[in-house]
């Protein structure tokens, strides 16, 4: 093995890299332990980072990965506006996607420049999903906003503190523009505390090495990250591949919205081109470009065989092309509060494209990303907003079944305890668990879907949410079947049962006593289900993931006796029969089982993603 030599010794570099990582983690802990709103403290929807004096990321906390890749654009905006006007004791705040490199209005940056003496040496940066920034709907994430002006308070980069003095004008203004001022100010205090903690730690680190040496080390570490990234890319085959997938669409009569990515690998460089994606739409799912870049950075890190350092130098070999005016790079005043749906789909899209390049590393599609429902209303005289994070179904990998109950790689979030939700809000949760006979069949099966059902206890509860993957299902790979669709159902199991659109274009209101059930998408399968080992199918039945009838009709595995055992001869015969029969493409058996159990009878399988290379 040969290693390119550098000016700074590899030991000091490793020590400094570790120390910076520790600072970013410490920030993350401060926010987790002192935040007030459930979405921050329990779901952990926030991010922390340390930047160098040019605003480039040098470390990030173990936080929300899909946020992190947007820090570069946000820091560039800050330096553009205040490059010559930063002083010790200053702290900045902003959220605007169009003037500040933000993502959507609830994601609020609070950033503190760090000085050694009078010299700017870096930044402590935090990004927290604030529970409510005003706007048309509680939670500030309605799908149905048509302009960003409806989505809440837009904050360009401004000073939250100036030379240590708080900006009282801003705090007063903010307080009048949110539904829950106490939680918002509590969460902002947590961000401020995290930045101050990092400020002290970073200053002492820089003092240990001296500013000159520290800066040199940082440069070397950016170069080091770039070297590792180039090594990874060079190991991939050269060529061009495309992948197209669709978002189901908006409202009661959804029209498919295409997303397309084309990846070109040329030696140590990679181009990710989003040309061919839909034009921006008249709803809040437009995705500001920092979030799309973030998706690219994230997937490249996931696929690398070696851990990619967090130094921003690793993005130098990446060329990301995102045409203006599209849903992945909207122009103002496009609404973007529910942009995450495009963000999550971008991850599936990138993985689908890489499945053609490095098939052994890529899973089939999962449930479609994290869903953030927001329930609001009055509990007696008190206003409440309960925002949760739902996730947990993975597509199958080439060598194993899709995992059940771990989050999407883009957002390492946590669910909220049922008991906490019930203790704090007028909501009752009546079930939370696996949906049997669900998920995409395959030699390795996709994860079963999960479901979570609520009964509403206050007179009127308003729900804002978006989901996806009802019509265009989580794709399978190598002959594995698509995962099962996602459903949002009202009053399941009663004569009042009805489906709510994936992306409702108006508020959804529930009366006291009504129920709402979210059924997630199930993970896509990998490989032909008729090749699944009969022993694995038996285990699925014993674990009550599938019924014996489902095992027979979907996997061709015939079980007999008590307890169940595999009837080998019948299984062989039945599998041959299934292989030779012409399946009903619109009503495959596994979807019929899934929908019959939910009392849904008018489902027809349509679209599929497209690949080319």
């Amino acid at each position, binding site marked *: 093995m040969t*290693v390119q030599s550098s000016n700074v*010794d*590899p*030991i000091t570099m*490793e*020590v400094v*890299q*570790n120390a910076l*990582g*520790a600072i970013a983690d*410490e920030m*993350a*802990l*401060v926010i*987790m332990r*002192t*935040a*007030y709103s459930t979405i921050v403290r329990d779901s*952990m929807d926030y991010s922390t980072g340390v930047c160098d004096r040019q605003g480039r990321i040098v470390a990030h906390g*173990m936080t929300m*990965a899909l946020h992190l890749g947007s820090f570069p654009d946000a820091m560039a905006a800050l330096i553009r506006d205040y490059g010559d006007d930063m002083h010790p004791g200053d702290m900045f705040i902003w959220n605007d996607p169009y003037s500040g490199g933000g993502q959507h209005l609830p994601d609020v940056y609070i950033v503190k420049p760090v000085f050694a003496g009078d010299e700017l040496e870096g930044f402590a940066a935090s990004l927290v999903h604030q529970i409510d920034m005003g706007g048309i709907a509680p939670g500030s994430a309605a799908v149905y906003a048509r302009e960003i002006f409806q989505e809440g308070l837009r904050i360009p980069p401004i000073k939250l503190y100036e030379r240590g003095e708080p900006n009282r004008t801003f705090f007063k203004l903010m307080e009048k523009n949110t539904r829950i001022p*106490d*939680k918002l100010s*509590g969460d902002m*205090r947590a961000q*401020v*505390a995290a930045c*101050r903690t990092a400020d002290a730690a970073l200053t002492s680190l820089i003092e240990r090495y001296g500013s000159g040496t520290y800066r040199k080390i940082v440069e070397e570490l950016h170069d*080091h*990250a770039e070297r*590792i990234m180039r*090594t990874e890319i060079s190991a991939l085959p050269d060529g061009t591949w495309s992948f197209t997938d669709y978002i189901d669409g908006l409202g009661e009569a959804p029209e498919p919205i295409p997303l397309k990515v084309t990846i070109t690998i040329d030696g140590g460089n990679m181009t990710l081109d989003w040309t061919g994606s839909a034009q921006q739409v008249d709803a809040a799912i437009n995705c500001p470009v920092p979030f799309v870049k973030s998706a690219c950075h*994230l997937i490249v890190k*996931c696929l*690398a065989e*070696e851990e*990619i350092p967090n130094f921003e130098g690793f993005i130098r070999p990446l060329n990301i092309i995102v045409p203006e005016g599209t849903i992945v790079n909207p122009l103002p005043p496009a609404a973007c509060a529910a942009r995450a749906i495009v963000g999550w789909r971008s991850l599936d899209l990138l993985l689908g494209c890489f499945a053609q390049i490095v098939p052994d590393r890529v899973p089939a599609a999962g449930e479609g990303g994290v869903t953030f429902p927001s329930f609001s209303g009055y509990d007696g005289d008190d206003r409440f907003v309960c925002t949760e994070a739902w*996730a*947990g179904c993975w597509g199958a990998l080439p060598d194993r079944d899709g*995992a*059940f*109950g*771990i989050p999407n*790689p883009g957002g*390492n979030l*946590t*669910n909220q*305890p*049922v*008991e906490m939700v*019930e*203790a704090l809000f007028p909501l009752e949760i*009546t*079930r*939370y*668990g*696996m949906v049997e006979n669900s998920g995409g069949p395959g030699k390795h099966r996709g994860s079963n879907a*999960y479901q979570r059902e609520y009964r509403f206890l206050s007179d009127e509860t308003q729900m804002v949410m978006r989901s996806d993957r009802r019509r265009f299902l989580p794709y399978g790979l190598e002959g594995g079947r698509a995962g099962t669709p996602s459903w949002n159902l009202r009053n399941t199991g009663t004569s009042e049962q009805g489906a709510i659109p994936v992306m409702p274009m108006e508020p959804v209101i529930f009366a006291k006593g009504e129920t709402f059930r979210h059924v997630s998408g199930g993970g896509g399968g990998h490989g032909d289900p008729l090749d699944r080992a009969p022993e694995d199918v038996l285990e699925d039945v*014993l*674990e009550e993931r599938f019924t014996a009838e489902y095992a027979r009709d979907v996997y061709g595995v015939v079980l007999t006796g008590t307890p169940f055992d595999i009837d080998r001869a019948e299984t062989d015969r039945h599998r041959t029969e299934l292989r030779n029969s012409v399946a009903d493409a619109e009503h495959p058996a596994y979807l019929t089982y899934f929908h019959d159990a939910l009392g849904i009878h008018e489902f027809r399988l349509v679209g599929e993603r497209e690949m080319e290379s």
Partner: protein
Amino acid sequence: MKYRAGIDIGGTFTDLVLMDEEGSVHAEKLLTTPDEFGRGIAEGLAAALRNVGAEPGDVNIIVHGTTVATNAILEAKGAATGLITTEGFRDVLELRRLRIPEMYSLNWTKPPPLVPRRLRREAREKVGPRGDVRLPLDEASVVAACERLAEGNVAAVAIAYLHAYANPAHEQRSAEIAREVLGTDVFITCSSDILPEIREYERTSTTVINAYLGPILSGYFDSLQRHLKQIDVTAPVQVMKSDGGVMSVAAATQKPAYIVESGPAAGVIGAARLDTTANIITLDMGGTTAKASMVEHGQVARTGDYEVGAGINLSSKLVMGGGYALKLPVIDISEIGAGGGSIVSLDRGGLVKVGPESAGALPGPVCYGRGGEEPTFTDSVLTLGYLNPGHLVGGDLQLDANRARQVLETAIAKPIERDLLDAAWGIFQVACGTMVRAVKAVSTYRGRDPRDFTLFAFGGNGPVVAAEIANLLDMSEVVVPPTPGVFSAFGLLLSDVEHEISRAWLNRLADVGPADMENAYAALQKELYGVMADEGYRQPDYSVTRYADLRYAGQAHELTIETASAGGAPDLATLALEFGAEHERTYGHKAEAEAVECVTLRLIARVAEDRPARKDATSGGADHKADPRQAYFGPVYGQMETPVIDRAELMNPVTGPVIVEEYDSTCIVPPGWKVALDTQNNIVLTRGNT
């Protein structure tokens, strides 16, 4: 002469310490006998008693720390266990809290649930968050669930219903039904008994762990006591809990979930008890990991955010999901994958990495000559001249220094174009830098400045790295206790009988009066008296301290604050102020206008015992004299001729560099440090003004 015996079982060695009434200590390391732990312990104890000239009847108490519980979970060798939950929630155990301990991973392997889905059954019932019954218990559904578990031949059953912390009636009735259906041999745990606190995954997981361990640990304790009886040792056996207290074997058999981290806890307790006013950070570095913990004014720090089997437990909750949640009090120990066996490698960009992969005991470091081919931390410090190739574990382990040098040269030094000593020094630096993170996780992450603390080093490798870690953190004092390599076993002897009980009590302080809180404490206290009576203690044998877990209304994480002791009604306004002060100390800010909310009340009963101060120490190894050797202390000092002495030679202060070699550990005193013995025979290193 009467003796207390501390016995700490680890994977390879069992450490045994005897202390007599005058405080004299005798330490031995025995080989662990994993096929039947009791046999090895009994044989070793008999031999140790012979060595000090004592009879079996002279032992008046045995305090035991064990990894049997942890290993049963790590190796998935617990009892076949069933779980009964509220209808609609059988998958809570498997869904967990979702979060995983890695970023950017597409193939992370989730630990399988301790109870498979087929053995997770549901009962029709529902209780609300205030204990209101929303759906009465359908007993037929419990019978049906138990019948399914009977078909699955379970040896243990966990019962965990939603909000059972607020109303345990449904669980308790279900336990009766389970006994009727499954028989009295089945080990049953209710969540309302083991952890009556809010958050269903953590409570369910804790309940399951207790049930999963129950049958295994009762077999283990039976065997241990049988073997002790065979050598005529009839002294009572106490077991170290994860929170540093001890409990009787009878209690540990019922609540084995309390003893999961008993080994690591003992060392921290030992450090805390040696000086009850001290502010220290403990550093325990062994073969695979390094562990740090904080002791403030003699009080250990506890946490409830813990997972079994997560491997790394750095800064508690950020790295989460790798193991099984166990929300019982445990000493807050942060652990990182840097030990003697940690493997040294280069990444693709050419940076030196140490761990977290470990060569373990087999094949072990290259220098062990047992087939290890990858360089490790131990190979590097041997190359630096810090270890004596002929004197590890009193010479029982011979090291091949040449082989270690060759492998380091080829695998590391050549590729990064450094000479061998520079490379070895670099590896030492990187490992110490990693451990600094563990120390920070228990100090700066909680608002404490390490410079205000003494670093207290033990474990086989702790005294090797302590001074360098102190250098990196600007700490000025390091203490190395006698018998540092078996210090955890020694710590067992310093632990108190201690019981903690807790109860969810979700109220804003402004909404309740002092009498409400007093009544809640009184009810809890009555329960605690019962627990202590079962252990054979009555007031005033023990003291009771009250704590409350408080937060600003709306936060998710609480801080535990000591409240005024029993007697007077608590002053809630003062309590709120004390909470604000602690919040500011820990997180750098407070919010006086915010409502303060209580989540949990806790009581801890402690039986303080009189113990002799420790005096001299002897060990199983022979005395030795070693020649000075060349040791390397970085580019500033280079390689230096370094005297090698034993602890007794430190009667007069010495200036570094010097190496203090002992039976069970090696203490490195670099240049720039002074070293002396204190009155308790501790090695004390003091940093000079450099």
